[in-house]
């Protein structure tokens, strides 16, 4: 038998094993789409931000404030959420042009999803586009979406040691925003320790402290977003 079926042919000798050198990045498909997105955003004159945080840190609240106070409104937002379009509606009420990506069970956005969403966004007259990632401090860090800069958001209610627990995400950030500063005292937030942790884990990142609820501290972030040309 040949080894494949019940025929009378003699068994074929197995083919010799050989090694194929590939050295291919596992995320090469995502990365090349991200490069196309980056190019696309640039041609539209957009500053593009990938905003990452845990669930409930206040990403949408921060973007509502940005939508109201950005010097050249409206801002554009692509917002990822597992199941609802609540976030997009909140942002539209605040004056943003928002497109929702419903990710289903996906734990992160990828560059192809962002590309699809971007094709639904009317970006005329917009110079700031924020991609609000899925609330998750692990998976989104690995996926380039084509953004110019990354912002990691951390709220005082999450504790000072969050950057130590999720180093990969904070190390990939161009800026870290500490949100809910108005609650710092009430929850016993150790500001000095949080800043020391951030300086140790993410020395490259600009640091902002603000309250998305009251708007306090927002100006410095707006200035940083505005300062770098698209």
């Amino acid at each position: 038998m040949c080894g494949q079926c019940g025929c009378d042919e003699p068994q074929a000798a197995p083919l010799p094993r050989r090694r194929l050198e590939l050295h291919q990045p596992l995320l090469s498909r995502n990365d090349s789409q991200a490069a196309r997105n980056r190019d696309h955003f640039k041609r539209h004159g957009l500053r593009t931000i990938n905003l990452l945080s845990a669930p409930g840190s206040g990403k949408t609240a921060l973007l509502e404030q940005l939508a109201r106070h950005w010097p050249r409104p409206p801002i554009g937002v692509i917002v990822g959420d597992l199941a609802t379009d609540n976030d997009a509606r909140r942002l539209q009420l605040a004056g943003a042009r928002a497109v929702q990506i419903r990710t289903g069970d996906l734990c992160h956005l990828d560059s192809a999803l962002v590309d699809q969403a971007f094709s639904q966004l009317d970006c005329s007259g917009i110079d700031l586009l924020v991609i609000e990632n899925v609330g998750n401090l692990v998976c989104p860090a690995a996926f380039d979406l084509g953004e110019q800069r990354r912002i990691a958001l951390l709220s005082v209610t999450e504790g000072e040691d969050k950057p130590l627990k999720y180093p990969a995400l904070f190390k990939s950030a161009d800026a870290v925003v500490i949100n809910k500063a108005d609650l710092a005292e009430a929850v016993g937030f150790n500001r000095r320790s949080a800043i020391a942790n951030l300086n140790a884990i993410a020395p490259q990142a600009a640091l902002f402290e603000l309250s998305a609820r009251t708007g306090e501290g927002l100006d410095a972030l707006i200035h940083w977003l505005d300062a770098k040309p698209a």
Partner: protein
Amino acid sequence: MHELALLQELCALAAAAAEEQGASQIHRMELRVGELGGVNPEALRQAFAVVAATAPWQTAELQLDVVPTRCFCPHCAQAFSPLDVIYACPQCGAISRQVLEGRELELVALEVS
């Protein structure tokens, strides 16, 4: 938990490369995973066990090499292996911003026939 998504990418890359080279069987996939690649090697192995139960992956073996983090200290002009998630140079204590290795997430090679 994006390991399953990564594994799908891996299988797609491997299958395409094998087909392109006229190979009909994949015996081994060699993967380099950096400590900072955002991937849990154990979760990746478990995800592979699911895939490996189906054709044409039953004969394939997954070799996972974890790449430790290496940083560069500009003051001491040398590379070092950080002791923990804070990349402090063991010589001078300065915190490094330069990661030389540890972000890899790469399909290195296949063994096929």
